[in-house]
């Protein structure tokens, strides 16, 4: 906290009414783009998974309005526009142009994420950009949908620096044809590409109409005005966080090929209304695919910031002005060529959890214990019929961390994803030669605490045809930690043929052959608990037992609640157990048991 002067409100005459109308209109404009994209896209990962985002940007690339969508796309659409300007110059843009890029190091994402944007001209002046990003099912990696085992980016698919898809309104067939050929699912890719272009056109038309109505000067004044509003609010919010240096560290499992665990180190300096996040000390980039370009790490730090500072507010060019992010080059969070980046989100989930962990002592009411942490991607691929291959891919939900006034959610998608919906069993079984034999919540997977961590899930799938299994399951070395005495959640696991003589366990699997009839069981982790478990209301523990979230045995061992037949609480033994747990805890010096904090 400091007495740093606040940003002065501009003395230029702005009309608060017009500012608000334009601000709302720009938000609606981005939402209309997103609706256009979702409703016309081809792949379930976009229309069900909402693995996409749309924004309208000003002529500098600042966000004017961004749609809801994938949280981790916060802030890197503008990076794509700026990088194009750096390479091509401002004169490169013409009305009717549409640009495409997916270069992992520029976008801070994996090659599957296609950024498509269009410059917007109004009365022959460049006034802004409409930009979209969406996950394309396949961009020609060595394995379908993306590679689990790439050692270099060149195995991850086609990599494209900013190029035109449309030039002055005319499609550039030569470029589009290259994209169409470098995918296993050409029709789908073309459909998604068209959907993104349509979304850009929607944004362009709407933005122009706003300018037609209010004129350029009024729009510019309004823009500066609402950027300033956002900045003011964020400065005040950061100013309210106690000054200090906060640290947290966690270990990622490794490169997927048996290499050592990879540390992610975060230091946060809060000074007045400034907040600086620094990842110095984080592991050097690895030859496994869990690296990410700097732009992605910037997004993750922004997501963490957003979770704590005005999470309800939309993002614009005035947000994140108090946040700086430092990552020395060449780490897993600032990868350079040729590091593979297919699982770019793995370090990002850790960065987000660590930021909350670091700031927990400063703002305990705003944070939560760690969540299960990663997307837990599993793919099953093979021949559905002689002339038809299938690719089932997607993330899986797990438990979220408890917080000062509530339990963590069960079976919720991870922080870097957002509106990602899972595929219903009936859809899966209809589309793929797979039968879901079991699907449910993992009892006792949520970290015990006064407020319990949410439960992870299990899903047991039987393949009907020869297939290959790919999986990238993370956060087993540092599972979701608890806070303030809460315990950690369960780790993830992938098992082939559980209970059979050929049972095998994996976290990272690459092209593991599956025979018809084989069973794959995945288990995702739970969230961390918040506060000592023996302080949890015994009635809540009893209810958890009746609903099967917690076993009778764990109720006693982890919570000190003794439950006898018919779900009744045995009061005297419960009092005794809990008193003992409290006494035992006093012997420990560290009140929060987060395993890797320092």
């Amino acid at each position, binding site marked *: 906290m400091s007495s740093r002067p606040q940003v002065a409100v501009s003395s230029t005459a702005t009309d608060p009414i017009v500012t608000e109308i334009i601000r709302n209109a720009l938000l*609606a404009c981005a939402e209309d783009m997103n609706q256009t994209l979702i409703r016309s896209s*081809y792949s379930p990962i976009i229309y069900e998974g909402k693995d996409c985002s749309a924004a309208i940007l000003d002529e500098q690339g600042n966000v004017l309005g961004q749609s809801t969508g994938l*949280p981790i796309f916060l802030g890197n659409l503008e990076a794509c526009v700026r990088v194009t300007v750096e390479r091509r110059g401002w004169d490169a843009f013409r009305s009717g142009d549409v640009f495409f890029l997916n270069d992992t190091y520029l976008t801070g994402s994996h090659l599957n994420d296609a950024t498509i944007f269009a410059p917007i001209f109004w009365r022959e002046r460049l006034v802004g950009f409409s930009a979209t990003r969406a996950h394309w099912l396949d961009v020609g990696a060595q394995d379908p949908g993306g590679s689990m085992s790439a050692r270099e980016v060149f195995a991850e698919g086609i990599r494209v620096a900013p190029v035109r898809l449309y030039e002055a309104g005319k499609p550039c067939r030569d470029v589009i044809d290259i994209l169409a050929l470098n995918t296993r699912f050409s029709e789908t890719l073309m459909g998604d590409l068209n959907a993104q272009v*349509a979304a850009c056109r929607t944004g362009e038309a709407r933005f122009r109409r706003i300018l037609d109505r209010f004129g350029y000067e009024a729009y510019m004044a309004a823009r500066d005005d609402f950027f300033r509003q956002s900045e003011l609010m964020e400065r005040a919010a950061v100013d309210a966080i106690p000054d200090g240096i906060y640290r947290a560290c966690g270990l990622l499992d490794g490169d997927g090929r048996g290499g050592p665990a990879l540390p992610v180190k975060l230091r946060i300096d809060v000074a007045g209304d400034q907040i600086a996040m620094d990842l110095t000390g984080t592991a050097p980039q690895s030859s496994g695919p869990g690296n990410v370009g700097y732009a992605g790490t910037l997004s993750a730090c922004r997501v963490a910031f957003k979770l704590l500072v005005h999470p309800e507010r939309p993002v614009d060019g005035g947000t994140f002005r108090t946040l700086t992010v430092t990552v020395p080059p060449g780490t897993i969070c600032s990868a350079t060529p040729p590091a593979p980046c297919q699982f770019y989100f793995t370090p990002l989930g850790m960065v987000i959890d660590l930021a909350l962990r670091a700031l927990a002592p400063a703002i305990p009411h705003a944070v939560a214990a760690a969540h299960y942490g990663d997307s837990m991607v599993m793919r099953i691929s093979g021949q559905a019929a002689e002339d038809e291959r299938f690719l089932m891919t997607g993330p899986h939900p797990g438990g979220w961390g408890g917080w000062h006034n509530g339990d963590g959610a069960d*079976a919720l998608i991870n922080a870097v994803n*957002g509106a990602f919906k899972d595929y219903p069993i009936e859809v899966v079984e*209809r589309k793929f030669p797979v039968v879901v034999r079991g699907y449910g919540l993992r009892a006792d997977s949520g970290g015990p605490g006064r407020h319990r961590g949410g439960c992870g899930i299990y899903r047991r799938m039987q393949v009907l045809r020869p297939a290959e299994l790919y999986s990238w399951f993370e956060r087993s070395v540092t599972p979701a930690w608890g806070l303030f005495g809460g315990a950690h959640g369960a780790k993830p696991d992938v098992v082939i043929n559980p209970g059979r003589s050929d049972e095998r366990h994996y976290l990272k699997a690459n092209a593991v052959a599956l025979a018809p009839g084989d069973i794959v069981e995945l288990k995702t982790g739970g969230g961390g608990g918040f506060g000592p478990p023996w302080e949890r209301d015994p009635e809540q523990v009893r209810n958890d037992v009746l609903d099967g979230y917690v076993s009778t045995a764990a109720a006693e061992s982890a919570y000190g609640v003794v439950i006898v037949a018919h779900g009744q609480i045995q009061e005297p033994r419960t009092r005794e157990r809990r008193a003992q747990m409290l006494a035992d805890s006093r012997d420990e010096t560290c009140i929060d048991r987060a395993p890797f904090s320092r």
Partner: protein
Amino acid sequence: MPQFLEARDLRIAADIGGTFTDLIAVERDTKRAIATKVSSRPDQPAEGVLEGLRQVLSDPARLEFLVHGQTVGLNAFLERKGARVLLLMTAGVSDAYTIARHDRRDLYALQYRKPTRLVPRRDVFEVPERLRADGSIEIPLDPASLEPVMERIERDQIQAVAVCLLHAYLNPVHEEHIRELLHERCPAVFVSLSSEVAREWREYERASSAVLNAYVAPSIERYLRHLELKLAELNVTAPVRIMQSNGGVTSTRRARRQPIQTLLSGPVGGAIAAARLGEATGRRNLLCADMGGTSFDVSMVVDGRPTGSTEAELEGLPLLLPLIDIHTIGAGGGSIGWLEGGGLRVGPHSAGADPGPACYGRGGRSPTVTDANIVLGRLDAEHFLGGRMALDTEAASAALKPLATELGLTVLALAEGMLRIINAAMADAIRTITVKQGIDPREFSLVAFGGAGPMHAVALAHELEIPEVIVPWSPGTFSAWGMLQTDIRQDFTQSFYRPVDRLAGDEVLSSLRALERTGATALEEDGVETGRITFERAADLRYVGQEYSVNVPLPGDEPVDPRVAAVAFHEAHRARYGHAMPDASVEFVNLRVAAIGTISRWPWTRRPPPREGDGRLGQRTVVFDGVKHDTPALLRHGISASDRLAGPLLIHEDSATTVIPPGWKARVDDCLNLLVHQP
């Protein structure tokens, strides 16, 4: 017995709302409509209906039928006072209900809570059985496995059970068998089958629909039984028809079996009324704005029909059912103006009905949109709700003052600014809805009704560049009137996954015919004469690989050529999404048939009540665009068809006030609609 029917020359609609129960009685021969409003009794909803009936129905023998819109089921849901439901699901995957879908609605909410389910995990039972993805049986149902469920039903006196088995949308045999078994042992228990409630894929959404159906069923059953008893005491023998969210009505018998169909029926009457208004006045495309104190519902009539949907959500819980699309926008008279980061915001917080806007004088202190309207002179403090409620102009002004001071604006400038912001935001929301549908609002007329609709309608039309606003006669009872314009309707769906290019034409036709036979039987059971039954066919199609499908009407009674349907699909796709791929493979997803029992309609004319004087209420001072205008205030029923009016103008009537800004022209048509046009 035609003479007997002849004698029945009165139709009545009774629409229960949150505050008032609206009744409207229409006489066939005089074409007169009598409307009345009585206070709703949430604890005893039937009482308002009966009290209203006593007012408008002198001779029960004259009543042809009573159409009833009720909110009993919705209220039971919203207050979470429905029945305890046991849910039966396929063994191994029963957590699909508890887990729901794993998406997060609120992207940056760290302390997130999922929507509250209606069935706790301990009440979900597993049934050992399994169908394959093609609907064939892999593991047969073992009747003995239901023993624990039966015991629980008996022990805990369970009233309702929902059943959702995997792939039952393709083959309901196990679900139906379970119902038989349950009814053998526990005949009184209500059984809700997912294959009957929502015959579409996606097990969580289907389970959620079946559960919701079971959850409200006992409340609806109790209510209808009570109502029918009381109607019998009044000697009412005419049939009662229950309004459904699909825009049609149904018998009380069927409403008891599928109460879910009545859940979202509340705002549907307005959309039907608008469609009928369009039909009577030759307009095919209408945007319908129903704005009350706290809610703002938008629906659309496109090409003469209200647009529909097959999916909805209640407090985060999904429902699969055919319904007229009603979009609720979080803006209304109660929306509050406030400051954020030094910038002015209006909404989404609302003062609600209680305490409500400051001018209600119920202790509200926050400046609301209604307060802004009254400060600007657009709302007449003396004629609000026909004079039943006095508004406090001073309190409205006092509520706006502090905010105005902080922004360096006058109270008037703030008030007008708040209206501009809320109007623009409402227009943005409407535009987003039209974008989803691929519609251009400029080709539409705006029909405004509800208490606050006519006040904002012209400003909304201006924002959306809509050239014409229509305010129907008595906008406050327009929805109830719409309920009298409905047909009996039941919708039937059949999953039908077939690629167009591998399909014989008669395969589609035979499936449609089967649905039509089911529909005819259902309507005949409800007493509809065979000759009055017609069908509307439609199919959901999509490009192979897409998930969302586009609904394409299949006109006529002819055999269906799949390739013709595919062409219609390409066109619909282009209209909605701006692009189509004529070379890509297309597949059928669902076949749909609506079985319709036509009810003869009485022609749309409305006899104006006798004119009282010249209807002038004097001059008011009203602010438009920062300028005070001397504005005449008129009584609606003082305007005759020959009058040519021009804004600025205020038009008052019992249930609403229409605000006409300078430059806009207004007149009334033969149906007593007020037509307002862009200059």
